């Protein structure tokens, strides 16, 4: 296995009865990246995560995490991995501090080091004022932070988070991502699953998962380009004539009302690489006599990407 890889999965299958939850999946995650696994409920994300953690045995295929073969070398994985399950899975009848201390003790942390680490985490996650509150009495956002704290107690190199933001309000989700980016800066590799497409923009790379398979993979930008064949740029100009004719190197996907004299007209085009090609586009338009009002890359949301990819897979099948 390539030492730069955190995870390498080859031809993984997990079958429950006649249902294949994971169906011949390949996946590579590099050390140091934030990797997002996206897909609707039932796509097989949680099964994949559980196999990755050695919590479930695969039906067939190979799973290597940090070079350790799962599920046989689970003990080695546990030492370097912090895990946050989809459902809140800490003791509701123990306080915030007691939960953290319990897990610290299970990692064999000596008393003094444990005390230090717990207060460090409490302040990092802004939970100092709630350290004696029972976990069952915390709000959703606080529960989520506590679960992250428990996952971090032993300073893991690899953080595996299974839908950590499910059912949490958007502002709290954003705050949670601030924590994750902070950890990633300290070179913690993060694997996160979500079904919120907007969150995936935060990831270095993402994989779209559907029906037990990865149907598209890459950086958020690559994925969008992959679907539309490039970046989408929206152009508004003033002038008469068809601005599309001035841009022979662009593929036009949408045309607004054709400009009469002086009126604005707009169009959407696709280019290979928007930042690189935009100046040339402006030049070409101006040379053709148009007054350029605006040229800007459009925000394509990953939801559109996902829908298009899934449709493409269906048509192809």
């Amino acid at each position, binding site marked *: 296995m390539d030492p730069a890889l955190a995870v390498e999965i080859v031809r993984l299958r997990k079958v429950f009865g006649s249902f294949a939850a994971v169906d011949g999946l390949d996946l590579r995650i590099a050390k140091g990246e934030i990797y997002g696994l996206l897909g609707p409920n039932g796509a097989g994300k949680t099964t994949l995560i559980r196999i990755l953690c050695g*919590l479930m045995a695969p039906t067939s295929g190979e799973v290597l995490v940090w070079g350790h073969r799962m599920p046989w070398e689970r003990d080695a994985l546990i030492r370097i991995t912090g895990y946050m399950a989809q459902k809140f*899975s800490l003791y*509701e*009848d123990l306080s915030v501090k007691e939960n953290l201390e*319990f897990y610290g*003790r*299970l990692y*064999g942390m000596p008393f003094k080091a444990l005390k230090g680490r717990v207060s460090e985490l409490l302040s990092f996650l802004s939970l100092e004022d709630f350290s004696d509150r029972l976990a069952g009495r915390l709000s959703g956002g606080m529960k989520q932070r506590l679960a992250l704290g*428990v996952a971090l107690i032993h300073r893991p190199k690899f953080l595996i988070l299974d839908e950590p933001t499910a059912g949490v309000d958007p502002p709290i989700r954003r705050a949670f991502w601030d924590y994750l980016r902070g950890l990633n800066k300290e070179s913690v590799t993060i694997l996160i699953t979500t079904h919120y497409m907007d969150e995936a923009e935060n990831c270095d790379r993402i994989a779209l998962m559907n029906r037990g398979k990865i149907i598209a993979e890459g950086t958020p930008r690559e994925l969008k380009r992959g679907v539309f064949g490039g970046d989408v740029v929206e152009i508004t100009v003033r002038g008469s004539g068809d601005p599309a004719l001035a841009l022979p190197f662009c593929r036009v996907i949408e045309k607004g009302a054709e400009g009469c004299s002086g009126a604005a007209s707009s169009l959407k085009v696709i280019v290979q690489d928007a930042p690189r090609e935009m100046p040339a586009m402006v030049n070409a338009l101006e040379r053709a006599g148009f007054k350029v009002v605006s040229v800007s890359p459009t925000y394509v949301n990953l939801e559109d990407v996902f829908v298009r990819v899934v449709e493409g897979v269906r048509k192809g099948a």
Partner: protein
Amino acid sequence: MPEGAPPKVLAVVRKELIQLTRDPRSLLMIALIPLVVMLLFGVGYGGSSGKVGIIIVDMDRGQMASALIEAISETPTISVKAYAGSVEEARRLVSGGTAASALVIPEGFTPSLMSGSPVQILVVIDEASPTLASTVKDSMLAVTYYFQQEYARQIHGPSVELIYNSVYGPKVTNLEAFTPFVVALVLQLVPTTLISIAICREKEKGTFEQLIMSPVSRFDIIFGKLVAYFTATLVDMLITLFVAIYIFGVVIRGSILDLMLISTVYLLGSLGLGMLISVLSRNQLQANQAAIFIFIPFLLFCGGLAPVELLSPQAATIANINPMYHFIYALRGIMVKGYGLTQLLQPTGALLVYMGAMMSIAPALLKLRVE
């Protein structure tokens, strides 16, 4: 493990004890059940024994009949409920539930006895309750026996006299005879039911998934929980023994230390059994049902209510593989007969094997997986 870190099993013990103290239902079960069971038992079994009602039909009205009736009314286990005029009326009263039995002294009872001829008296019994019926039979035998002794003495005739000599010691009260059974009852039911949810509650609530993502071994999980529940249920053992000895005045003829030792072994066995149930159950409901279901054969073949030797040979065989039977046997030996454990090698050995088996099967079957 780094230097200076306490063993992980202690972390589990500590966590379980905190959780136990925060769960009012468990606390109530630990403290209240043994107290209530012991007190109910003491009130029900400790006072003077009840009496079986009898109806008398005296068709003789002679002097011998009066003597017999007097003897009956003096019998401690029988109370005369009513007098009836005829056998039919007596039967009606017995089947109607006024009394459990009726005694019919036939016409010519006194003259026949006077002339030395054999006589018969009729006893009508409601057999619906075997225990009551056998009490009536025993009492009537005793009364007849006593009456015959008196009669033989009067006519200077020959008689055979029975003298009972108890090997259990001079005097064993009802309470003392049943205390081993009740102690076994509490030490079987409470620990097993209590700990039976220990693992499956974690699975049901999802905490198990997080727990096994830490470097905890199945031995840490099982023995951590066992030690915590042992500490808690040790209280049950002390309560039951304390109530028996200090409140009901049950005399322990053997050594208290032996009593504690054998009870501890049984307590650990019960906890191990409950843990096994927990490992095998999918959820808390299933575990509770399993704990109660297993309790039934334990109870039926423990020999605490009816001697299993008298039930059937099969019952005796089943009893031999029933830990509760061996425990009650050992408790009786220590409490009533004053034996030491060295005189109770067989039940002690059986209980040690039971404990060892339960302690090792549960961790062997626990899988650190989510399925």
